[in-house]
């Protein structure tokens, strides 16, 4: 009789444990996915030009910090002497790296021009009242300089 009572209580405790674990798992599965919440927020935002520029400024900024590490690491080859350095630079004259260099210039250019825009909005008396003009200038000057750099990189007109 006693054995059955012990078995009964063990079963009841185990069942309760399974129940609690199940509750925990169900609660975990039923909570909102952070990615879904993020995506719903992103869809709810008004994607006006200033917000686009803000997001692009952050993304390009992170990319440039990463590139600063890569750039210093790549130029470290100088320490190994002429042959090693020239071999590495040969790699950077291939079409793939020329296009990559051009895209890198786009990143640098946007971050620089938009940075100047931010400084003008924050520091100048007129900047905050000429937002539309400033944004048009950022993208206009950006596209023009991008084309100019394209000529310099792919045609190399000043080569001696």
């Amino acid at each position, binding site marked *: 009789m006693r054995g059955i009572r012990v078995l009964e209580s063990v079963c009841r405790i185990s069942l309760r444990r399974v129940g609690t674990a199940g509750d925990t798992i169900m609660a975990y599965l039923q909570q909102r996915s952070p990615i879904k919440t993020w995506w719903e927020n992103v869809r709810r935002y008004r994607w006006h030009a200033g917000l686009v520029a803000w997001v692009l400024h952050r993304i390009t900024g992170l990319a*440039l*910090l990463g590139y*600063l590490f890569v750039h*210093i690491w790549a130029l470290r080859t*100088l320490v190994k002497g002429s042959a090693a350095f020239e071999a590495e*630079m040969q790699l950077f004259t291939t079409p793939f790296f020329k296009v990559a260099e051009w895209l890198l210039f786009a990143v640098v250019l946007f971050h*620089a021009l938009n940075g*100047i825009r931010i400084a003008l909005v924050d520091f100048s008396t007129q900047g905050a009242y000429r937002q539309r003009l400033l944004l048009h200038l950022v993208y206009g000057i950006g596209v023009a300089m991008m084309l100019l750099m394209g000529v310099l990189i792919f045609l190399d007109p*000043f*080569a001696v």
Partner: protein
Amino acid sequence: MRSTRSRWSSYGWYWQRISGLLLVVFTIGHYVTVHWTEAAGHSFESSIERLANPLFQFWYLGFVLLGFYHGVQGLYNIVRDFKLPRVLLVGIMGIVIIAALYFVYLGFDTVLTVHEWKHLP
């Protein structure tokens, strides 16, 4: 404590803009001197010619320092916008700051030891 913190973050806001504007000047100079032609940026001779010049050494050391200051400060501004646990914030910033300090050392070492490696074949 709160007032001290907001005072410091306003300094960060100000110097982020000043260092950014300085970096624009540095970057224009960098592109004009190094990337005007392909040969200027990609040959060993033109590189050692520049790096042996004290003015250019000064230029590059400032560029590296300012770049990492602006970059790390910018990353901190981004990371701070997410409500991360304090451990994660300190962890991320700690790793990036240590890496940045090592790469500042690496950049300085490359520039300042030019007399040692410029004759290597």
